[in-house]
């Protein structure tokens, strides 16, 4: 059904003619028509804005999902601001900027690694009790963060990093697009890295 054909609750105006504030208000009452219209209105704006900055479909999907999650986590989040458009734009911009900052920081860290440290797998690591405790905490944080991941995404991560399967084959096995697989891998990897970094 076209969004124009959907009516906003008791009102006779089509949802496509409603202001963003009215759409948010309708969403809070449980109107899927209001949600669909707001999503339709902003999806391409957010996706195109992000893709122009990350130049990568998997990252663009991941960051678009992150932006919308923030927007709809608290639909009244724009309260106190003059415009939902300004608020949503700000969310998308912050999401991209944070991503670019993290990417730059990781690149810098890799650049700073001394070549001899790249062979650390050949060295003997003598662990202290403090090391063990820190490791346990890191693993616990990683396990907790993975509770928010869908089972199919964990399976994708396992197929990629344990079974070492190519993206194409994983996509075929779980019946999802290659981009969805890349996006999922990126999300799980980042959750693990964030959990590790918090310790």
């Amino acid at each position, binding site marked *: 059904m076209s969004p124009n054909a959907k009516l906003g609750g008791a009102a006779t105006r089509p949802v496509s003619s409603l*202001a*963003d*504030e009215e759409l948010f208000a309708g*969403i*809070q009452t*449980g109107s*899927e028509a209001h*949600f*669909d219209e707001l*999503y339709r209105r902003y*999806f*391409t*704006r957010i*996706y*195109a*804005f992000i*893709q*122009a900055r990350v130049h990568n*479909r998997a990252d*663009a*999907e991941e960051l*678009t*999902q992150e932006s*919308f*999650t923030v927007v*709809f*986590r608290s*639909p009244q989040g724009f309260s106190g*601001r*003059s*415009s*939902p*458009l*300004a608020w949503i*734009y*700000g969310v*998308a*911009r912050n999401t991209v900027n944070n991503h670019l900052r993290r990417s730059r920081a990781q690149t810098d860290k890799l650049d700073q690694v001394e070549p001899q440290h790249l062979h650390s797998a050949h060295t003997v690591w003598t662990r202290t009790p403090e090391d063990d405790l820190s490791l346990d905490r890191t693993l616990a944080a990683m396990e907790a963060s993975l509770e928010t991941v869908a089972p199919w995404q964990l399976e994708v991560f396992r197929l990629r990093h344990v079974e070492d399967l190519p993206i194409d084959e994983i996509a075929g096995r779980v019946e*999802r*697009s290659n*981009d*969805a697989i890349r*996006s999922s891998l990126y999300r799980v990897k980042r959750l693990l890295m964030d959990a590790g970094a918090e310790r």
Partner: protein
Amino acid sequence: MNERDARARQRVRTEPGLPEEVAAEFSTEELLEFLEADHGPDTADPVFRERLRQQLWETLERNRRLRGR
């Protein structure tokens, strides 16, 4: 003011729900680019678009039910 800038300012003025004082938070170029997507090609994967829509709606509904308890 060039033509592109004038178009952006006009769009910002006429966009519903965007008072001019808010537009002042961002550069005209930034907002122009954000709104230009309305008229550009949709390059997103439709499967991703629909899956995200469903996921967001289910989350909203779940949260609404939890708040209603």
